[in-house]
């Protein structure tokens, strides 16, 4: 009964994020106005900002599950941390790619060492390092323990990197505060908020699926072991 309820909850979550993404797409292309100076290309901004938010948020989840794992030694925490890194990696890659695509028509070059873009690139490298670390370890207990520690240490350096890079240079359009570079209307803000919510739902769905995949892998390993024991005795 419990399993069945969880199954339907998952279906509901997936459906909700599907609907939310479609609504967000509709708003990005038909509801949000055309930006004055940048034109149509500015619409990539909604995906860019939303995926950057998820990239950071996913890392925060890994940080929390790292603490959870070290405190309790429960495999469940490690699974959440690992899954969040993998899902977050997808989104942060999207941030960097959309950032580059946006930069080309607006600034005339694919890559500017702009703070927000740079910190996303640093985060991307941290995510990759986390993956490489786990891949280079043999025992699953070590993977979990070192992954947790690395997730914690890496996360606390991100705000400092952010401050350092921001002081280093800044030419990013100051969004939401109105500032230079971009004319923001109420419709744009609404579209952005809907896109961020849709991406957050999508993140939750993907995280849930990745977690259950890892649990299934564990279950399979357990069953295999039992089968081997039975056939050998």
């Amino acid at each position, binding site marked *: 009964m419990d399993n069945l309820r969880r199954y339907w909850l998952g279906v509901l979550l997936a459906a909700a994020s599907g609907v939310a993404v479609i609504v967000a797409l509709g708003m990005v292309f038909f509801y949000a106005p055309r930006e004055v100076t940048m034109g149509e290309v500015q619409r990539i901004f909604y995906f860019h900002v939303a995926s950057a938010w998820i990239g950071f948020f996913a890392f925060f989840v890994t940080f929390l599950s790292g603490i959870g794992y*070290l405190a309790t030694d429960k495999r469940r925490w490690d699974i959440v941390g690992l899954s969040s890194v993998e899902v977050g990696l997808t989104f942060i890659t999207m941030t960097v790619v959309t950032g580059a695509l946006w930069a080309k028509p607006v600034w005339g070059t694919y890559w500017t060492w702009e703070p927000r873009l740079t910190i996303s690139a*640093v985060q991307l*490298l*941290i995510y*990759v*390092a986390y993956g*490489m*670390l786990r891949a*280079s*370890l*043999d025992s699953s*207990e*070590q993977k979990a*323990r*070192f992954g*947790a*520690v*690395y997730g*914690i*240490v*890496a996360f*606390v*350096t991100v705000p*400092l*990197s952010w*401050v*350092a*890079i921001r*002081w*280093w240079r800044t030419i990013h359009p100051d969004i939401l505060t109105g500032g230079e570079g971009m004319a923001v209307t109420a419709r744009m803000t609404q579209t952005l908020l809907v896109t961020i919510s849709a991406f957050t739902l999508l993140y939750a769905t993907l995280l849930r699926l990745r977690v259950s995949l890892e649990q299934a892998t564990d279950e399979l390993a357990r069953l295999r072991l039992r089968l081997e024991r039975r056939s050998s005795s």
Partner: protein
Amino acid sequence: MEFLRKVLTIVNKDIAAELHTKEMISAMLVFSVLALLIFSFALDLRGEMAEVAAPGVLWATIAFAGTLGLSRSMAREQQGGCIDGLLLAPVDRSAIFFGKAAGNLLFMAIVEVILLPFFAALFDVPLLRPGVLIVLVLGTLGYAAVGTLLAAIAVNTRAREVMLPVLLLPLAVPVLIGAVRATGGLVEGRTLGQVGGWVRILVVYDLVILAVSLLTFGYVVEG
């Protein structure tokens, strides 16, 4: 006091081992000089160019040479099961961390003390200033602390030496930016107060990293 004595005992052990083999300092030093040579070819470091590029070249050299020393220092503990002996000793995990980090800081500092006048003479850059020394200490402290923690992780991986830079460098971004900017300002003749923002980043980074490393080091070396 008791705690400090234990930390110093571990540092002494590392110094004795280093005096015996001399492999860490000599490797870092030779590598640093080679790096200077390569940077000099790559960037044509003369006159104004040297002054502009000097802080970056200096810290890139320190960062890369540091990874060599840090991974060697931990590999030495792993070989022959020295780390198990350390863990069996009646000392706190935090004393082990402080001891290893202080040893790494010391060895990196020795290399820097030799490198700095050499660098200043070779490229005619005014690096020998008290402010630069303070920045060097603050930058190296944070780098050695986070490097010690990550080296203790990396030494367990299959890739080992290859793994440490991949783990360490993205986390050392604040140190590198802060130290390069502060050093750059000082080379241009500004005072330590005028580059205070960068120095503060280094101090905050050092404190945060020391705190987090102390809390997590025990989990890294157990089991």
